[in-house]
């Protein structure tokens, strides 16, 4: 009998392994930001922050904050050597122009057609899309980072999104706390699963068509 326990940590750790040296990566606010902590030491990615920088570094030490340097969540930030700053039109020229290799975003709903909803629950929560629509439409590869289930227990991976979309048909990869999926041709392809779950259990608990890839394996991340 498998029992689900929410695990955001494993999502961030698995996503951090996707990148290779030289990749330009934009990490959304929340869980995606947390991915930065797990990028292997021998992989050098360049973090883009849509408020206008390349080479986003770790948080500054207490007392060393610079009022003119924050990440896209208004949290004090640092810049790594070799980084640079630019205005918002340039920042989104970089994003829209396909120069960001990976964007990692949180999810309200995602579906098997690669549709993503993450900016609005009508009548309830309307924070605005910020840079998310451009990031999802423009980045080379879009990674959705999300716990597999809502608080209610419903699958956040849907057959069809019901909330207003952030972008249509743009999500390429999904990492949940059950496994790692590729979205293609209207289906979820399971590439890797996490213990203690099983591909069968994941298929049963996902609202959509999950295909288990022939080379699908259990992740070594625990």
């Amino acid at each position, binding site marked *: 009998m498998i029992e689900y326990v929410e695990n955001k940590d494993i999502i961030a750790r698995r996503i951090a392994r996707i990148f290779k040296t030289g990749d330009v990566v934009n990490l959304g606010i929340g869980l995606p930001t947390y991915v930065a902590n797990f990028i292997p030491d021998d992989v050098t990615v360049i973090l883009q922050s849509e408020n206008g920088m390349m080479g986003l570094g770790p948080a500054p030490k207490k007392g060393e904050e610079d009022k003119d340097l924050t990440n896209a969540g208004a949290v004090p930030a640092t810049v790594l050597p070799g980084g640079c700053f630019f205005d*918002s039109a340039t920042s989104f020229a970089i994003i829209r122009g396909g120069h960001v290799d990976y964007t990692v975003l949180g999810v309200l709903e995602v579906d098997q057609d690669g549709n993503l909803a993450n900016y609005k629950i009508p009548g309830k929560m309307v924070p605005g899309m910020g840079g998310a629509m451009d990031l999802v439409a423009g980045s080379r590869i879009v990674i959705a980072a999300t716990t597999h289930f809502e608080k209610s227990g419903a699958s956040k991976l849907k057959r069809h999104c019901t909330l207003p979309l952030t*972008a249509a048909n743009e999500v390429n990869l999904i990492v949940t706390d059950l496994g790692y999926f590729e979205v293609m041709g209207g289906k979820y392809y399971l590439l890797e699963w996490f213990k203690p779950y099983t591909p069968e259990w994941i298929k049963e608990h996902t609202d959509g068509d999950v295909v288990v890839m022939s080379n699908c394996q259990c992740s070594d991340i625990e």
Partner: protein
Amino acid sequence: MVIKPVIGADAAAALVKKGMVVHVGGFLGCGSPDAVIAALAKAGTGSLTLVCNDTAILDAKNARVTGVAPLVANKQFERVIVSHIGTNGETQRQMNSGETVVDLVPQGTLAERVRAAGAGIGGFLTPTGVGTEVEEGKQVLTIGNKVFLLELPLGGDIALIKAKRADKAGNLQYAKTARNFNPLMATACAIVVAEVEEIVEVGEIDPDEVHTPSIFVDYLVMAQGGKA
């Protein structure tokens, strides 16, 4: 070179007239012209339309108020055109109650619309928003086999921007992520007021390192604690 007038924050706020479209620089308050905003809050000028990345942070619990948030709290805007209101619950309340019209625009589209206004571009095609609510009411064009939305320029009557340093002619340099929308807005509005932390002599800024050419700037305002 032509020297630009340095005026007080109150005089700058007085340039903003009832009903104007006001562009304000800053990203959640980072790189906002705080002295001019405070003066405009004091002046209380209303019926304004705001163009800004966001309505900044209004967090009563942690006593954190940044950027344009005081103007929102004051209800000085009848319309706000921004990409994000998630850190200012008062904006959302005013939207739900019908007190303020809120136009949410994707951030990259917003930046490019402001740039287009300054650059004499009549519109541009973006893939952002295709297949979403953002598409509503817009012309959709297919070029080759890609679908785009036609987005229109977004200029304003006055820009309130923030730079790190100016020379007396009005050439500007921004610092780090405090740059954001400021240089774009400087090109897109009839009147441009730049709040700065330092004013240096003409010739002290390397001409290869000017971020906003002096011709865009009409007035300089010294930020609180700045040096001339």
